């Protein structure tokens, strides 16, 4: 069930009405209801895969309890490793097995041998990487003693399965979501109004900006061999805008839906394209993932409090893992690697005037755009060919029709985000006079009404 579909609208309105009007003020019943509808939401994709999710929940719920009850350092480590192993094994089988199988086979072929361990023809459970990481964050927090183990299995299951963030995040932490689920649900008008604004803005980003960009990007990628340098730059820039609109739009709708149910999810994006360096970009882009890697990989490896060489190693490990988290392809691994290089480069102290210069914003955007080429490409060959035509061997011609309406929307979108960059999202206009506020809502609504595009494709991050 996609957030931008009629099905979701009907589903959510019914859930909201029952939640606040039928079972109001009965916390356990409200929790059970949310869990039930979350199961329904998940089963809308591939129903049988709910068993996999259940396995992750049972294992990590048990691990949380076992960790809390045990004082023995060795035993606690064994429990942690068991939990991480089982949870990641599921992820490995569904997401990474074929990647390793194919690469082992290629490697054997390279050395003249033969090694075929077969291919699994299973579809990837939707959002697997997201709920695996969310479940693991609970185990880590209990292990480090920052979170008490959850007694109620239903509450814990809801923490992993809570539908607004189930399939593409934000990757929640128990300190935020689990603690809110344990409080009585109270309707807060201010939070609900913010929720509605988030949904409206998220829809605008997804169906007006991202999906319209996607049409041109996909068209260019179909004719990649004949595309000129200008075409490829154009497609690359539009893909940067597409992926931001798509993923941050999804996150906004997720947060908005959740706020209408009285639960505040963590912020996932903080105007990332206004960053002045790649390092800053990563502190603003998909922050629920980058802070996950920071807290559970980077800091345990020593973080910044080690020698410069080890710090570089830590950054490389985190970014390569982060790339691999996105997908079992070399393109993602190299994407992570090159991002790491740019972050490492930022260790070099730049002159203060350069670090604050507004020119660093478009430069950072262009670097990010080139790196997204790796992310979008179907394989390394395609990525190298595109980057080669974009940066080295220029090719003439121009096969793209420039869409003036789309650019008007893109410029308005970024202008709005720039104007509100100190606020929490691009339509956070609660402080505006009511006439300006309601006029803006009306304009956004009618832009959606006239210009929305609803292709059959899903949100990009659903595949992870």
């Amino acid at each position, binding site marked *: 069930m996609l957030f931008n579909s009629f099905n979701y609208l009907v589903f959510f309105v019914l859930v909201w009405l029952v939640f606040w009007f039928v079972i109001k003020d009965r916390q356990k019943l409200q929790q059970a209801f949310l869990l039930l509808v979350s199961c329904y939401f998940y089963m809308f994709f591939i129903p049988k895969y709910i068993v996999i999710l259940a396995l992750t929940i049972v294992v990590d719920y048990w691990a949380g309890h076992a960790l809390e009850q045990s004082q023995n350092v060795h035993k606690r480590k064994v429990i942690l490793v068991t939990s991480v192993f089982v949870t990641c094994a599921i992820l490995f089988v569904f997401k990474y097995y074929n990647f390793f199988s194919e690469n082992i086979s290629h490697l054997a072929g390279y050395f003249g041998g033969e090694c075929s361990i077969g291919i699994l023809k299973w579809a990837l459970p939707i959002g697997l990487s997201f709920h695996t990481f969310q479940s693991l964050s609970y185990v880590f927090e209990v292990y480090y003693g920052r979170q008490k183990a959850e007694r109620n299995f239903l509450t814990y299951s809801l923490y992993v399965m809570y539908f607004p963030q189930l399939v593409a995040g934000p990757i929640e932490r128990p300190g935020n979501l689990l603690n809110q689920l344990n409080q009585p649900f109270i309707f807060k008008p201010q939070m609900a109004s913010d929720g509605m604004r988030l949904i409206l803005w998220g829809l605008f980003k997804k169906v007006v900006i991202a999906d319209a960009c996607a049409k041109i990007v996909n068209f260019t990628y*179909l004719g990649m061999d004949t595309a000129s340098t200008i075409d490829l730059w154009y497609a690359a820039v539009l893909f940067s805008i597409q992926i931001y609109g798509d993923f941050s739009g999804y996150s906004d709708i997720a947060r908005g839906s959740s706020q209408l149910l009285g639960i505040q999810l963590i912020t996932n994006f903080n105007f990332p394209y206004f960053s002045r360096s790649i390092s800053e970009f990563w502190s603003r882009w998909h922050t629920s993932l980058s802070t996950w890697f920071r807290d559970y990989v980077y800091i345990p490896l020593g973080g910044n409090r080690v020698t410069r060489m080890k710090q570089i190693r830590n950054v490389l490990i985190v970014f390569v893992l982060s790339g691999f988290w996105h997908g079992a392809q070399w393109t993602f691994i190299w994407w992570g690697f090159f991002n790491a290089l740019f972050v490492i480069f930022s260790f070099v102290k730049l002159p203060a005037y350069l670090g604050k210069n507004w020119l660093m914003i478009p430069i950072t955007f262009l670097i990010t755009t080139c790196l997204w080429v790796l992310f979008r490409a179907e394989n390394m060959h395609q990525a190298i060919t595109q980057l080669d035509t974009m940066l080295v061997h220029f090719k003439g011609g121009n096969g793209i029709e420039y869409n003036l309406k789309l650019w008007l929307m893109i410029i308005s979108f970024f202008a709005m985000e720039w104007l509100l960059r100190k606020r929490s999202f691009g339509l956070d206009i609660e402080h505006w006079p009511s006439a300006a506020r309601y006029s803006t809502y009306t304009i956004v*609504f*009618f832009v959606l009404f*006239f210009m929305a595009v609803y292709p059959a494709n899903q949100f990009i991050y659903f595949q992870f």
Partner: protein
Amino acid sequence: MKSFLIKLVVFGSIAVLSHIVAGYFMNGTTDSNYLRFLRYPNHGLIIGTSRAAQAICPDDMVQHSGLFNAGFSMLTSPYGPAYTKYILKQLDTTQRSQAFVLCVDPWSLSSAFDSITGEENWIENDKMVGETERLMNPNWEYLIEQYSYGWGNIILEHYRPTQGMILHDNGWLEVQRKFDPAKAKIRQGGKLENYKKDVGAGRRPSTARVESLRNLIRMLRPYGKVMLVRIPCSAEFRAFEQQFWQSFDQEMLSLGNTEKVQYWNPEELNRVLPFNDGHHMNYVGAHQFSKMVDRSLLEQ
């Protein structure tokens, strides 16, 4: 809560009202498929892909009036179970003297196959023909689930149809583009390249689709005349199709003979009629060709 609900109801009402207003503008300009999901009384059907949709105008078929053009596109309506199900919904089973023109070409009878499992990809199953359950007027199911734009676009398209594309009430898709041989040649180059590189490379003839076509002929025969037609395309396109499926004409001829229906393959028209892109017939050519189909059907 009360004040929030009031605001919600006000904005919700504006949203619902806007959509209802847009609903009043639904017609052949809405998109190139909407009208085919309404229930129209007809005396027969023209069946096929986008070639059929653009090449046969039922109003020109004076000897066989009241036909409805039910052709969609290569991705949406190749011969197979989903399209057959749709045709059965459009079929008027109360009449026995109807006419059915089944347009065939290598693309409507071929499929892509999974490179690992070898399974045939019934691509149309999760497209509009496979997914839309009901034909009704107006068809809200289609608009909600298949219409790919904000509904305000229905109003915009009503006043300014994209690229002059109009779907007539009889199902004929008219592309109102003035014929320019030079531009048509450029478009043909791109189209042919696309078919050679992407469409043709990933597909192969499908015995299951041919079988579906055979079953469809058998299902339609009790209700009237059935004819198989290979719609003309440019000579260059035909040459590529010949390369893709060498025995296509013989197989269709044999199918026609076995099922006792005519297979009409007016190959000589490939060099006579004008095509927008080598693949789809220009509207001027469509008027001429429709009359020929009408005459040929009369000879059945």
